[in-house]
C-alpha cells in the first residue's frame, strides 16, 4: 500500500506514526486542560439550557436578563455560589459533611478521560489520538468510577443529620446499586458485537460494520438509556431528591459552593452518560461514510481493509478532526437535550415502581436480550454471514425484541399506576350506586 501524501512535506516524519516522548506529554497535558474546560463549560451551559428549555416547555421566558439571551447567567450563578455564605448545620458530622460534595464531584470529572471525541489529529510531531487516555479496560473504567459517585450522595445525606436528607441518601444507594446491574448488562451486548471493551475499538467496529449499534442493538440502547437516567438520578428517577416528598433530598442542608459541587457532579454525569450513548450506540465521533474511519492496527493508522484483506492506510487531516468533533458534540448535545426534554415531560415514579422496574423488568429483560444477541451472533458466525448482512440480520432480531418489550411495558401491563390498580380492583358501579353518587354531587369520571 502506498502511504498517503504528508500534509507536512517539510517533515521527514511519516504522518501515520503515533506521537511519542515529550510531544506526547505536552499533547496529553493540552488535551486534559482543554477537555476539563470543555466539560465544565458544557456543564455550566447545560444548566442554562435546562432552565431556558423548561421555561419554553412551560410557556415562560426563563433567565434572559444576564447578558444576551441570558448567556452570562451560569457565570453569575457560579460567582454567587462562590461568595455566598456556607451554612453548616449544627448537628451535622462536619468531616463527612465536607467530604460528601468532594466524593460526588471527583469521580464525575474524571469519567470523560476514556471517551474518544474526534478522529486522530495529524501534527508535525505525529498523530495525536483525540482521547485523553485510551486505557485497555475502556468502558469498565467508566462503570467502575461512576459507581463511586454514589458515596458522595450517601455520605452527604447521612452526615446532614436530617431525616429528609437521610431518606434521600438511602434511596440513592438502593437505586444506584439496582440500576448499575441493568446498566452493566445492557453494555454487554455492545461488547459482544464490538469484540472489545475500549471505546476506540467500539467506534471502530461501528465504522467497519457500516451501522451504528443503535440499530442492531436497539433494545440494548433502550435499556441503556433507561438505566443511565436512573444512574444519573434524573427524572423520572430522581428519587434521592424528590422535591414533593423530601424537600430536596440528600442536598437539603447544602448551600453555596457545596451545593454547587453536587450540581456540577450531576450535570457532569449527565454529560458523560450522553457521550456514552453517542459513543456506544451512535458511532461516537464517526460520521456517515468511510472517509473518516481511523484505527491503530498493528502500529499503523488504517482506514479499513481492501478486498484481499490488506490494511488500507488512513489519511488523518485537521478538517476531519474538526468535523468529527462537531459530529460528536452534536450527538452528545442531542442526548443532553433528551435528558432535559424527558425531565419536563414525564412525571416522577413512585419509589416502589422504581425498584420493581429495576429488578423485575430491566434485569430479566437485559439477561434475556444478552442470550438472544449471543445466540444470533453465534448462528450468523456459523453461517458465515459477515459485514452489513450480519448487522441487518441482528437489526431484524433486535427490532422484534424491542417491539415485544415496548408492548409488554406499555399501559400498565407490568407496572401499574395507582389509578390503574384501583380501576382493576373496583367493580363497575351498579345503577343504584350511580344514582347515589350523582345524588351526592360526585361525577363518575372524577
Amino acid at each position, binding site marked *: 500500500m502506498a502511504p498517503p501524501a504528508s500534509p507536512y512535506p517539510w517533515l521527514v516524519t511519516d504522518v501515520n506514526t503515533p506521537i511519542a516522548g515529550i510531544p506526547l506529554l505536552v499533547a496529553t497535558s493540552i488535551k486534559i486542560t482543554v477537555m476539563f474546560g470543555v466539560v465544565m463549560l458544557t456543564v455550566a451551559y447545560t444548566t442554562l439550557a435546562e432552565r431556558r428549555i423548561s421555561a419554553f416547555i412551560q410557556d415562560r421566558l426563563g433567565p434572559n436578563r444576564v447578558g444576551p439571551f441570558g448567556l452570562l447567567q451560569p457565570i453569575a450563578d457560579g460567582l454567587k455560589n462562590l461568595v455566598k455564605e456556607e451554612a453548616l448545620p449544627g448537628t451535622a458530622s462536619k468531616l463527612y459533611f465536607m467530604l460528601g460534595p468532594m466524593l460526588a464531584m471527583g469521580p464525575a470529572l474524571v469519567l470523560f478521560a476514556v471517551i474518544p471525541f474526534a478522529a486522530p489529529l495529524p501534527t508535525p510531531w505525529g498523530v495525536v489520538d483525540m482521547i485523553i487516555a485510551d486505557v485497555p479496560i475502556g468502558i469498565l473504567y467508566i462503570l467502575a468510577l461512576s*459507581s463511586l459517585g454514589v458515596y458522595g450522595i450517601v455520605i452527604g445525606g447521612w452526615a446532614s443529620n436530617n431525616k429528609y436528607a437521610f431518606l434521600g441518601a438511602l434511596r440513592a444507594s438502593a437505586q444506584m446499586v439496582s440500576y448499575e446491574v441493568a446498566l452493566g448488562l445492557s453494555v454487554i451486548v455492545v461488547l459482544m458485537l464490538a469484540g472489545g471493551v475500549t471505546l476506540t475499538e467500539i467506534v471502530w467496529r461501528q465504522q467497519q460494520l457500516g451501522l451504528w449499534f443503535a440499530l442492531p442493538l436497539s433494545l440494548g440502547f433502550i435499556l441503556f438509556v433507561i438505566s443511565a437516567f436512573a444512574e444519573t438520578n434524573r427524572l423520572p428517577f430522581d428519587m434521592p431528591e424528590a422535591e414533593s416528598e423530601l424537600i430536596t433530598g440528600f442536598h437539603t442542608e447544602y448551600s453555596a459552593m457545596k451545593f454547587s459541587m453536587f450540581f456540577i457532579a450531576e450535570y457532569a454525569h449527565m454529560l458523560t452518560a450522553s457521550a456514552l450513548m453517542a459513543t456506544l450506540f451512535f458511532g461516537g465521533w464517526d460520521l456517515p461514510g468511510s472517509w473518516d474511519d481511523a484505527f491503530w492496527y498493528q502500529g499503523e493508522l488504517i482506514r479499513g481493509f481492501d478486498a484481499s484483506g490488506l490494511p488500507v492506510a488512513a489519511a488523518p487531516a485537521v478538517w476531519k478532526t474538526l468535523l468529527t468533533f462537531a459530529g460528536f458534540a452534536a450527538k452528545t448535545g442531542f442526548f443532553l437535550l433528551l435528558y432535559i426534554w424527558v425531565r419536563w415531560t414525564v412525571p416522577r415514579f413512585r419509589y416502589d415502581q422504581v425498584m420493581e422496574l429495576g429488578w423485575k423488568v430491566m434485569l430479566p429483560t437485559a439477561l434475556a436480550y444478552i442470550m438472544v444477541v449471543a445466540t444470533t451472533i453465534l448462528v450468523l458466525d456459523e453461517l458465515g454471514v459477515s459485514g452489513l448482512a450480519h448487522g441487518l440480520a441482528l437489526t431484524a432480531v433486535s427490532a422484534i425484541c424491542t417491539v415485544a418489550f415496548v408492548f409488554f411495558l406499555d399501559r400498565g401491563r407490568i407496572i401499574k399506576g395507582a389509578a390503574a390498580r384501583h380501576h382493576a380492583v373496583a367493580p363497575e358501579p351498579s345503577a343504584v350506586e350511580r344514582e347515589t353518587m350523582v345524588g351526592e354531587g360526585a361525577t363518575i369520571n372524577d
Partner: protein
Amino acid sequence: MPEILFFIFAAVAVGGAVGVVVSRSPVASLLFMVATLASTAGIFVLLEAHFLAAIQILVYAGAIMVLFLFVIMLLNLGHDYQRDIRGNVAMIIGFAVTGGIGGLLARQLGGGTAGLETNLGAGDAIDAALREYGAVGAIARPLFTDYVVAFELTGLLLLVAIVGAIALAKKAS
C-alpha cells in the same frame, strides 16, 4: 515513577487497613476500607492487571461497600461510639493471629524476592496473552477454557447463597 506511585498506593492501602480496625465509627471504617480497595486497585494497574483493578472498584468499592453503607445506615449504627464485643480474650487472640501472619510474611520476605521471581516466570506468557487477547480476554480465556468447571461451580455456589438468603429473609408462614 511507578515505584513512587507504588509506595503511595501501598501507604494508603496499609493506612486504610489500620483505619478500618481502629476507627470507632462504622462509617469511617467503611470509608477507610474503600480507600484500601481503591489503592489496591491502583497497585493492580501498576502491575498492568487493568481488568482486575476495574472489577475491584466496580464490584467491591462500587457495589458491595455501598450495600454495607446502606445496611450501616439502615441500622443507624453510624453515630454510635460504644465499644462492642472486644473483650480481653478477643484482643489476645487477635494479636496472636496478627503476629503469626506478620511472622510468616517476615520470614518469607526475609529470604529476599528471588523465590517469588522464579515462581512468576510465567510473566512472559501473561504479556503475550495481554497483547493477543487484550486486558479482558487474557483473563476470560483461561476462565472459560481451562478452569470452566471451577468457574461455573463458583457461580452455582453464589446462586445457592442468594437463594439461601431469600429463604432466610422470608418469614415462615
